[in-house]
């Protein structure tokens, strides 16, 4: 198939940036979206033009590195990661617009590459159980009901790609933050630090400049791993109960 691509090009964070149009032909429907961009880049490189920079690594939908905003949707028309989106979702002659994630807390580094270190800092604020290596009890000494373990696993599946932020009109990171808070609030291992975790992670999320949640549900609709917004409800409960009973007031 033949396509027209409108791609966001931006030299670096300071650069203003803008769209550039490219024609591309001979695209097979078996290609993944990123392989289609590989073809474009091979063309550009051969012509001596700087290839389009984009983040990607595992290309099997689990590392969370790929991050393209395609035709107004994070990861494009399907509810998958961009690397798992295939060209059979498009038709010959389509015009496809490709942009980076847009959020104040995710500054563009170049073209379609953004800096998502803010997510790392939210986890550093409390997304863990404070146990050192060694000296822990036998794994089967902590029985956990299967239903709880499964719920925790559902939340833990977040790949940290940032599609939730990109989808949200407020660039809110509540789905991401709540997934970790939920996972650990559900499990017995997370109980000891339950309150302080919710307080600290929410504070860090706000400090990074992410917006607030207005329950539009766009994040859930676009999440490639199907993380549910019930996690946000749980996070809000955790946060309120932590704040009203906080020791650190």
């Amino acid at each position, binding site marked *: 198939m033949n396509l027209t691509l409108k791609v966001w090009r931006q*030299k*670096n964070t300071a650069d203003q940036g803008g769209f550039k149009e490219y024609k591309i032909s001979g695209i*097979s*429907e*078996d*290609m*993944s979206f*990123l*392989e289609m961009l*590989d073809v474009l880049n091979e063309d550009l*490189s*051969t012509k*001596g*033009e700087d*290839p389009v*920079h984009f983040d990607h*690594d*595992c*290309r*099997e*939908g*689990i*590392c*969370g*590195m790929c991050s393209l905003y395609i035709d107004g949707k994070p990861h494009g028309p399907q509810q998958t990661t961009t690397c*798992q989106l*295939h060209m059979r979702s498009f038709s010959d002659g389509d015009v496809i617009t490709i942009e980076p994630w847009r959020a104040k807390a995710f500054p563009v*580094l*170049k073209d379609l*590459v953004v*800096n*998502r*270190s803010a997510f*790392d800092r939210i*986890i*550093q*604020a409390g*997304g*863990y*159980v404070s*146990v*050192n*290596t*060694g000296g*822990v*009890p036998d*794994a*089967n000494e*902590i029985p*956990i*009901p299967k239903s709880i*373990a*499964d719920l*925790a*696993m559902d939340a*833990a*599946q977040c790949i*940290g790609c940032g599609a939730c932020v990109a989808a949200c009109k407020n660039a809110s990171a509540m789905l991401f933050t709540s997934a970790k808070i939920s996972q*650990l609030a559900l499990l017995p*291992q997370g109980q000891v630090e339950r309150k302080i975790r919710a307080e600290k992670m929410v504070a860090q999320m706000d400090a990074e400049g992410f917006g607030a949640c207005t329950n539009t549900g766009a994040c859930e609709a676009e999440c490639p791993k199907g993380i549910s917004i019930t996690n946000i409800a749980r996070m809000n409960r955790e946060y309120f109960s932590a704040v009203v009973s906080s020791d650190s007031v």
Partner: protein
Amino acid sequence: MILDSKIPEGPLAEKWTNHKFNVKLVNPANKRKYDVIVVGTGLAGASAAASLAELGYNVKAFCFQDSPRRAHSIAAQGGINAAKNYQNDGDSVYRLFYDTIKGGDYRAREGNVYRLAQVSVNIIDQCVAQGVPFAREYGGLLANRSFGGAQVSRTFYAKGQTGQQLLLGAYSALSRQVANGKVKLYPRTEMMDVVTVDGKARGIVTRNLVTGAIESHSAHAVLLCTGGYGNVFFLSTNAMGSNVTAAWRAHKKGAYFANPSFTQIHPTCIPVSGDHQSKLTLMSESLRNDGRVWVPATKEISEKLRKGQIKVNDIKEEDRDYFLERKYPSFGNLVPRDVASRNAKYVCDEGRGVNETGEAVFLDFRDAIKRDGEDTIKAKYGNLFDMYQQITGDNPYQVPMMIYPAVHYTMGGLWVDYNLMTTIPGLYALGEANFSDHGANRLGASALMQGLADGYFVIPYTIGDYLAQNSNERISPDHPEFKKAEVEVSERIEKLLSIKGEKTVDFFHKKLGKIMWDYCGMARSEEGLTKAKAMIKELKKEFWSNVNVLGGNEELNQSLEKANRVADFLELGELMVDDALSRNESCGGHFREEYQTPEGEALRDDENFAFVSAWKFLGEGQEEELNKEPLEFENVKLTQRSYK
């Protein structure tokens, strides 16, 4: 040089316990005076960085991805082995040890593997304490499943995303130490060289991938946890960024490289669909429990099928060749990975392959669906079937899956002793980056076990032994050795940028990959390897005279990143070929066509080849020197593997 594996004396079961007592310790107050560099943040790197920081060392952790959580350990699907014997089915540390040695076709060290089996049980405890949501039974206790090469259920798992959950556990421990100020993170930073002072590893030179800045970092020890080098084949199940650069630079600075040609080729991957393909996707080994592998019985039927003249479901039962069940009646479709892969290649070489390319075989669930019903199959493999459909556009409930072997894991890596130290004092290699535990073939669910064993439970003990014997005096990153390395790194980058040839980096990478796959892949021969060696030499020459690397150094430049990595793959490729040529036997994933039984099975030569090949770099353009570490088997009897 005589390679000293430093395996402790004493009975197998007491070696590690004795060693832990005999190693020197750094007292708690002195630990903060030592700095450790950890390169790579996968299972091995993240677990090591976190554990060392918890002990009190100052850690700097580097990764080329935008976050430590992206490391390719995240993509492991199946599970992690541990000798917990929670199932009461006869498992034990000794059995896990035995299965691993045998699975590796008797080319791994007994001492290392036994220790791995011992600490496997601690790993599960640790991960559960971190909040890793392993699968559970209704009673609330942990669930297990079984995997290839074992007759017990010892594999712990978290859906089909075990690697993800274990890595996120290690990442959370690492994040906690970042918050505590004991680990400093350097994402989007690539190690370009290791720096030695007075023969000891004292730091690294890095390139900031956003700004291009070349920087030096000094420390008292350096840990390379940089994964495997399967991407030398261009197409593999590895992530696009997985590379050999850190290990290769260390090799060129004096670290021996062990068994470089030992590559695992996984039988069940989604086949190549065209020249555009950038990577191959694994379909879990568990599918072979219910799927039947077959190809058409004759070349003619395959040809008609490839041309679209007939449909797969029209092929009659008697025209289907279930070749694994036919050749291996007792193991059937569940033969080990190396055997399954090789046989798929044989039938495709005969012209009986399917798919447009002729390089695929069927993995058919028709009979299982008929027997158990679609719902049962969906419950077991639903997510894998969906993934397959997403990628290929075919519905595997209606037509058989098509699969083909693909490069998946490299058993070879930097040579390390029992302490995980390379031949450069103070330089360690952990996880897939080292060679130590899997011999010539790795068993399923053992890679995660080894990465975490090295990082959580081995290095925290063994590094102390080295540091305690070395002064805690810090060295400035302005030391002449660092400056010299920085200049070398900059010169190489300038050289790459100044060639301005006509071919892209990917052109060379794809060409190298094809040579490696054709001649140093599933089946190797002296003739083919000799040819490959000449072709790689020629390709390397062409690379350095005709590659076109666009852009400059002082910016985010993905062409330059790739060029740097491919330049190292070209050199590694040659060494892999040398290694395969020198090992005149077949073992595990290394199959030399000249050495096979009359039935076409791998023929080991224990008398002449029961050793680890450790290669020493002697200088640019020179042949590397082969050193041998003899393997001694005091507990396990060497036998020919048979799956008939």
